């Protein structure tokens, strides 16, 4: 059977594929049982187009330009090593695809939000290829008609349709980049009244939905060519002599997590505020034992 992880009788249950260690389904644990929803998630990378920008076709992917070489991303790895951590407050799944791509899937007790804390970098470029790393969530049985929604600064949701612009006839020469949009806080897909899903981020990223049920956000990039838009150097940040390491969080919501008190819109709106205005944590050394401190 698959690897099933849940927090007893509250919150979310998560199942992983036993052969790949990748996410396979999630579900809400309710007193009358668990309804699991199929969903896959993994990390992919686009090869950054290299070029001397002498002509349009030689335009390189760089700080201003996202221009993948080819129309398909490749998986970072086919499987991930898994460590499962279980306790009274939080269940975690530590997944490691490669030494430079890993994540922690978290489900807190009584919380109906799947947290995915990603860690990407240093991105290897010894093969001379710049790489643009994305997290891709796929709801396999859902048809979304090439339509998805992205927010504008956490407020208005804008409808996006693949290879289409509402105000002019688009001839899309860039099958991937031409369908990427800014995602300030959330990317939403809808497959009819019974299926909506939101992928929420903790910082603005580029995102898209290139196929039915797909949700994709770009997390980190390391490129080897300038794109001739004025920066005059490639987007190749190094720290400690290697590529920069970035860490952040994505949150996955499904309309099944909604209830009478809080519908799907309420779920992602309230989570959006919580993510943007997290509590400020500070620590103070003390010599007093708890009762004296109190």
């Amino acid at each position: 059977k698959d690897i099933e992880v849940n927090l007893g009788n509250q919150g979310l249950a998560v199942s992983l594929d036993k052969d790949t260690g990748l996410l396979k389904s999630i579900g809400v644990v309710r007193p009358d049982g668990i309804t699991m929803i199929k969903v896959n998630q993994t990390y992919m990378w686009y090869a950054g187009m290299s070029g001397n920008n002498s002509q349009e076709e030689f335009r390189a992917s760089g700080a201003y330009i996202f221009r993948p070489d080819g129309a398909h991303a490749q998986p970072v790895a086919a499987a991930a090593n898994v460590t499962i951590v279980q306790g009274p407050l939080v269940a975690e799944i530590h997944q490691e695809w490669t030494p430079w791509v890993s994540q922690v899937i978290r489900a807190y007790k009584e919380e109906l939000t799947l947290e995915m804390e990603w860690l990407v970098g240093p991105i290897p470029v010894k093969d001379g290829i710049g790489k643009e790393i994305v997290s891709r969530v796929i709801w396999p049985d859902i048809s979304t008609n090439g339509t998805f929604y992205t927010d504008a600064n956490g407020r208005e949701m804008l409808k996006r349709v693949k290879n289409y612009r509402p105000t002019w006839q688009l001839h899309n020469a860039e099958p991937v980049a031409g369908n990427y949009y800014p995602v300030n806080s959330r990317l939403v897909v809808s497959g009819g009244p019974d299926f909506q899903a939101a992928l929420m981020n903790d910082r603005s990223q580029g995102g898209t939905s290139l196929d039915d049920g797909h949700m994709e956000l770009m997390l980190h990039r390391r490129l080897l060519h300038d794109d001739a838009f004025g920066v005059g150097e490639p987007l190749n940040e190094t720290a400690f002599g290697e590529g920069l390491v970035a860490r952040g969080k994505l949150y996955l919501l499904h309309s099944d997590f909604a209830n009478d008190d809080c519908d799907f819109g309420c779920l992602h709106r309230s989570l959006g505020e919580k993510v943007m205005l997290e509590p400020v944590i500070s620590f103070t050394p003390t010599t007093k034992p708890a009762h004296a401190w109190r």
Partner: protein
Amino acid sequence: PRLERLKEAMGVLQHHDAVSGTAKQHVTNDYSERLSQGVTESFQMVVEAYSKLNAVEGGDEGPLEATAMPVFCPLLNVSSCPLTEASEAFTVTTYNPLARPRSFPVRVPVPSGAGYKVTDDQGHAIVSQLVPVPDAVLRVPGRNSTATLELVFLAEDIPPLGFLQFHVQKTANLPFQKEQMSQIFRPQRGL
């Protein structure tokens, strides 16, 4: 003037190069430095505000432990915080900037080899869990931390625009530590 430093930094960083990272590396580094200085100075104001609140709470005793000043750990995202890694006991203050109550799972980087008793300001023991820091985080270049675990506990219903405080006490009590440690499984793929 200290808040001005942060305002000026955020004003300069409205420029599209700062927002989107389309600048030369040394310019990007300069943007980061300005923001970091601004945040650091504004945090000093937060510290002063807390000490005033504590002074009020301390009543005629004056500020509680006037010498001990709150510390912020900006590297919590890679589980690093020198104060919580080195202290036998410390207090955790969680301030909620939302205008409604909210609960929040607090994650505190700590070294292994001990248990940690968490008490709220009513004197109640709080359920907590020790969670291992993922290997990939331990390997992050430049991470300089002794923490291999995170102490997780729930700050429940932090008041709107208010805060909750907790006391954390390191303990060598093994049964307590065993009870607190998460269960860990490493399933072999394919089995």
